[in-house]
Structures are given as C-alpha cells and as structure tokens.
C-alpha cells in the first residue's frame, strides 16, 4: 500500500497534485496564470481572427510551440505550494507593464510581453530557482515566437545562402544532375524549386529548443551533458527531415505539391515535432528510471 502511494506521488503530474491536494491557488499563482494564459490567448486570437489563414504545417508548428511553452509555465506555476513563486510589488508592476503588449496588433509582437517578464524573472531569480525557470521558459517562448523570426528575416539572405549550399551538397549524393542557381535547385531542365523562408530549418530549430527546455522543466531535470546530446540529436534529425523534404520535391511538380502543400507537408511537420520530442523524452525517462528503479 505504501509502495503504491509512493508510485502515485512520483508519476502524478505536479500541477494536478497541487489541485488534488485541495489547496487553493494563491493570488500570485492566479496572476502568473492570468499573464501566461493572456499572452498565449492574445497571440492565438490575433493569428486566427485577424491575420492570414495558416497552412496545415504552420498551424501544427505554432500550436505545438505554444502548447509546450504554456504547459511548462503551468507546471512551474502550479507546483507544490512549498515551491510556488511568490510575487512582490515590482513583479506585479512588471507583469502589468508587459501585459500591455497583448494589444500589439501582430501575433509575434504579442510575445514582447513574455520577453519583458521573462527577462525580469530571470534576472531577479538568482536566489529562487523557480522564478529563474519561469523566466527561462517565457524567454524561450518569446525567442521562438518573436526574436528568432525577426533575426531570420533580417539575415534571411545570409542564412539562405548557407542553407541552400548545405542542401546542394547533401542532394548531390542522391541526384547526379542536381543544379543550383542562387536559391534555386533543379534536377531537370524544365522544373526547379526556389528555397524561401518557409522552407528553412531555422524555425524548426528554435521550436526544438523550446520543446527541449519545456520537457526538462516539466520533468524537473537539470540541464546536463545527456540533455545537450538529446538536443543535438533532435536538431540534426529536424534538419535532416527538412532537407529530405526539399530534396523529395525536386523530381516533379506532383512531388512538390505533395510535400509542399499536400499531406506530405503535415507529415513532415509532425515528424519534425516527433524528432524534437523523442530524444529529450527518452533522456528524461532514462534518468527517471536510474533515479528510482522501483518505479
């Protein structure tokens, strides 16, 4: 009986444990929850109500990134009451100031809110690990949703040259007649594809980083060599999947339509997400088994 209880304590998610223990959510938790949910909700409403329709691939990627960031935030906010973050007056002021970014009429810009609040919590969290963790997640979310996209757009031509060169080198292993002209690749004289922003692995890599950090925080694991190895494996797998997709588009228009607009596009998006999740999940589970062999 005692063993069974111990097992439940280990496996039950921390957030649910906080609720089932019957303790009311404190005002600090409420404020942090309102801020996190408000930021994500504002970005989702802006994107779905007021901006261009999203393709299936982008829909999957955006929702997964937000879902992981949100879940990790909830996990940290609703931790056991002994480890919950307590807010001070300046914290509340910063959260309110950051929440003004909810009104930015652009869904990436809404994440200025998590940038400001995340930086504040991270800088002020030297003595409180829980605050620092929350700050890291908010910053990772804002890097994925806002800053990585901004940096990519600013340095697009430079990144494109590197990426197209890499695809060309790998592609020559599979296509003997692979030709390159600027950002355009071809294996036939009458058909070529141009590598544009949506084809880049850059955003998939920032998504991988966010998922990696979120899983580590949810599982309460510290960042170590094994975790970095898992991140490296995920990053390589995500880039390989993207390059494979682009090379698969080269032979014909039909192949392009399948991998760019059709079911192949969603398949690649899901495959990339799986490649981002599985290595760190395996790493975390293996550590958990080592820590408590009986569970």
């Amino acid at each position, binding site marked *: 009986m005692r063993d069974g209880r111990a097992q439940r304590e280990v496996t039950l998610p921390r957030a649910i444990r906080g609720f089932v223990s019957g303790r009311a959510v404190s005002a600090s938790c409420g404020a942090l929850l*309102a801020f996190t949910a408000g930021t994500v909700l504002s970005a989702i409403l802006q994107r779905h109500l007021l901006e261009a329709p999203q393709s299936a691939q982008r829909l999957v990627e955006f929702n997964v990134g937000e879902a992981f960031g949100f879940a990790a935030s909830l996990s940290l906010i609703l931790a056991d009451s002994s480890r919950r973050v*307590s*807010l001070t007056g300046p914290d*509340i*002021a910063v959260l309110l100031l950051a929440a003004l970014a*909810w009104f930015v009429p652009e869904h990436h810009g809404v994440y200025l809110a998590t940038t400001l609040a995340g930086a504040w919590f991270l800088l002020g969290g030297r003595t409180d690990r829980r605050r620092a963790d929350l700050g890291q997640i908010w910053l990772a979310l804002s890097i994925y949703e806002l800053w990585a996209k901004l940096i990519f*757009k600013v340095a697009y031509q430079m990144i494109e040259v590197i990426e197209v060169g890499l695809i060309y080198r790998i592609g020559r292993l599979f296509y003997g007649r692979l030709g390159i002209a600027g950002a355009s690749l071809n294996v036939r004289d009458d058909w070529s594809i141009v590598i544009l922003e949506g084809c880049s692995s850059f955003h998939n890599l920032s998504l991988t980083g966010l998922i990696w950090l979120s899983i580590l925080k949810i599982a309460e694991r510290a960042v170590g060599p094994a975790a970095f190895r898992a991140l490296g494996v995920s990053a390589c797998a995500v880039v390989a999947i993207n390059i494979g997709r682009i090379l698969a588009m080269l032979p014909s228009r039909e192949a392009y339509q399948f991998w760019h607009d059709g079911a192949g596009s969603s398949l690649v998006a899901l495959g990339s997400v799986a490649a981002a999740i599985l290595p760190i999940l395996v790493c975390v589970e293996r550590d958990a088994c080592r820590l408590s062999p009986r569970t």
Partner: protein
Amino acid sequence: MPTQPANLTPWVRSGLAALCILLAVSVSVRSYAYWQRLADGAPAWEASGQPVDLGGGATLPRAAAAPFTIRVAPCASPVAVDFLRASPYEPDPSLVGRPQPGDRVFYVYRGRDLGTRFVTIRLNAIYLARLAYARLTGQDVPAADDLALKIIVPAGCEASADHVMAVLRTAYPPPAPSALRDRAPPL
C-alpha cells in the same frame, strides 16, 4: 514553506484583477476588430505607389523608378542608378546592376548613405521597422515598399554618394530609363 507576505496580498490581488481586466479588454478589442473586418472586408495589401524619397525634400515619381544613367560633373562615364526594394524577399542587392572592377558602389536610402557593409541586413531592418510602424499605427496599406538606390560610380571618378544625390535631386524631370533597364528586374 514560503507564504505570501500579508502586506503584499492586496497588491497581488489588485494585480490579478488588473490583468484579468486587461485580458478581457484585449479579447473584446480583437473580437470587435474581427466583426468589423467581416462587415467591411479585409483591407487590401497593395503597393503604396508613393514616390521615391531622395532626401532633402526631393522625390522621384514611382513610375520613373527604373534603372537609368546620369551624367555627374567630374565623371567621364555616366553614373548608373538602380532601385532596390527594401525587403527580405527581394533579390540580393549585390546582384542588382553590373558594377565593373574598380567601380564604387553606394547604397542610399532616403538620401542617407547606408555604406557598403551589411547592406542587405540594413535594408531588411528598414523594411521590418517600417512594417512594424505601419502595423502599430493601424495603416491599412503598409508603407513598407520603399525603394533604396544603388549608385554605381565608374572607376576613376571620385564623386561621392552625396554629390551624386545632389545631382539627382536637381535633375527634373528625372532621367529617362536607359538601356541599363535590362540590368535589373522591373520593379
């Protein structure tokens, strides 16, 4: 077990209430904008067609924004002028025009010399800044399709970018597009 200091609790509760009010207002504003858009239709994102700003108050009609050459006093050969759209989705500026070895190249935006290093990044940053400004100020037609100038001064000529721009500002009507038109894609 850390607990909320009693003297802070009213502040935190007030903060929570303020965050909830902000969230409700934010959702209401977006819902209103959505219904407004359904009623009026989405604004069209068209090119603004605004003239090219040459700096110093001078402008060039958008229709005249095609590659041309112009005579500048100290230069034996004409100076070539090309137009670049400031955007991450346009061709690499270094590929526009055909400077010969020894030619000097200047990139000018709104009369300001952008230098020659990291021009692409600077043009992209200008595009994003203008796009962000257009979004924040609620403009239906984003003024993000500005043009920058690429000036190719032939080898042996010491004319500066400012000097060429001064000549361009006074050249009215603007020089007709020349045979150099085929050096760049039409804008």
